[in-house]
């Protein structure tokens, strides 16, 4: 009797452990099969074709795909240095009294839902961009900056934690040799915390690629690739959020699933690279 309950419990837990694996495989399979008609119709030129005209049944994913890469690039270029600056401030510069309250508020800000960032971007930030750079404030630049602000607390919190793990002994030895604070940060703390810093940046990249609500408000959903960053534009999540519930034809749906499949592949690759990177680091250190 005892043994059979034990057997049941063990296998029940084992079965539930498979849940995420099964959903992950199912997501891949379902997205692929739903995207298949569009893949057949357009083939690889889907990725390079820049026309998106639902009324004429022409679908090219180029504007959305480039938009995703561009908005993520802008966000990372802005967020990474500032977030590392915040982390250095929190772990090395700030006096003890303000270290904790600011550290906690940064962590709490990471918990604020992205839809709030989007709403703030639409009502408060877009007008400022409009006044400074022209255009109507809606577009790639605004979306990239709002995205950057959203991932800022995320990178800063993890980077600070990684920097805090540097042993005091190492830092004190460097100071004893006459190093300035920046010398210590550059030659002791950053090399020591490197894995954590790069890991958090890659994870934030994965977040930024797939983020929907922070960008949908301020992107504009216009399918075009433009060097003018202040013009209304789109990326994959924005296209999906705006068109999925209203798509009419089968091919339109299938093309949207194709975009979702491409987005999924991008984020999957990102986390895969992060995992390999972490794994190598851990093996090296261990």
């Amino acid at each position, binding site marked *: 009797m005892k043994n059979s309950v034990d057997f049941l419990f063990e296998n029940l837990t084992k079965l539930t*452990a498979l849940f995420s694996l099964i959903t992950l495989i199912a997501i891949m399979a379902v997205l692929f099969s739903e995207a298949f008609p569009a893949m057949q119709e357009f083939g690889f030129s889907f990725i390079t074709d820049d026309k998106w005209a639902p009324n004429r049944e022409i679908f090219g994913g180029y504007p959305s795909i480039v938009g995703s890469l561009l908005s993520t690039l802008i966000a990372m270029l802005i967020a990474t240095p500032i977030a590392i600056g915040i982390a250095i401030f929190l772990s090395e510069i700030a006096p003890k009294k303000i270290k904790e309250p600011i550290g906690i508020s940064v962590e709490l800000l990471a918990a604020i839902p992205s839809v709030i960032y989007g*709403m703030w971007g639409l009502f408060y930030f877009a007008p400022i961009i409009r006044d400074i750079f022209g255009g109507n404030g809606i577009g790639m630049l605004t979306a990239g900056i709002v995205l950057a602000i959203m991932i800022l607390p995320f990178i800063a919190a993890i980077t600070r934690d990684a920097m805090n793990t540097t042993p005091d002994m190492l830092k004190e030895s460097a100071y004893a040799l006459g190093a300035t604070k920046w010398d210590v940060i550059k030659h002791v703390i950053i090399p020591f915390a490197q894995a954590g810093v790069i890991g958090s940046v890659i994870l934030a990249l994965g977040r930024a690629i797939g983020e929907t609500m922070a960008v949908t408000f301020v992107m504009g959903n216009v399918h075009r690739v433009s060097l003018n960053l202040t013009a209304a534009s789109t990326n994959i999540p924005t296209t999906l959020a705006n068109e999925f519930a209203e798509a009419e034809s089968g091919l339109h749906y299938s093309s949207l699933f194709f975009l979702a499949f491409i987005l999924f592949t991008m984020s999957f690759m990102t986390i895969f690279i992060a995992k390999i990177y972490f794994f190598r680091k851990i093996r090296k250190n261990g």
Partner: protein
Amino acid sequence: MTAKRKRILVNYCALAFSILSAVAGIAFLFWILWVLVSNGINALNLDIFRFDGAPPGFAESGLRHALVGQLMLALGATVIGVPIGILAGTYLSEYGINSKFSHFIRDISDTMMSTPSIVIGTFVYAIVVAPMGHFSGWAGIIALAIMMVPIVLRTTDDMLTLVPQTLREAAAALGAPKYKVIIQIVYRSAKIGILTGVLLSIARITGETAPLLFTSFNNNFFSSNVNEPIASLTVTMFNYATSPYEDWQQLGWAAAFILTAFILGINILGRVFIQRRRKH
């Protein structure tokens, strides 16, 4: 300039940059919080809890439909997602431990956690909404539950690993079968940790919008039927905020404020729990 001078100068420049970026970043973040609080408090009133959605311009409009809908979605996802997550975490920590399979499942969970939520929305659309022929609360619940499982799994795994091995051995030495050791000893001593993880995962899915856009969709009327489209605070916020009507935008800010207050409240509660645990 001597090398020493140069080093000191570089030092000041670098530190100044770091302080400046910290001030700028934190100022932006507090600006957002301030916008949220000032607009939210302005828009808050009792009518919000008494009335449902209404066409723009109606005096008797509120968020009751969205609050109830949000509650149903979160509750449904919790009922499905939490047991699966806890049991799966139990397997990793108590049976699989350091096996290749367990590490593989941990990696898969991390991958699931960083899968874009809108992709999960399209997936649930394909497997639930399309076959049923209409948007429904069920679809939203399933999408949120899928997101919840890996979060609960990881925290359960971490919390159970913290339980001292000697406790398990002591119980096993008394002749308790393994499932009893787990349920009566391991769960009990990791109780607060697991509860905190569950609370945080609820906070996390409550803020999600993208997976609901084409699953539970939206509903401007009161509905407690899970088989129909259901309103949520987040999707309502999105629709109201992007509408051109001022009174709808006001309701959007009220929803944003309620949502954020709830989520930050849970996060602060979780912190208090964890700190109390550390003290013991």
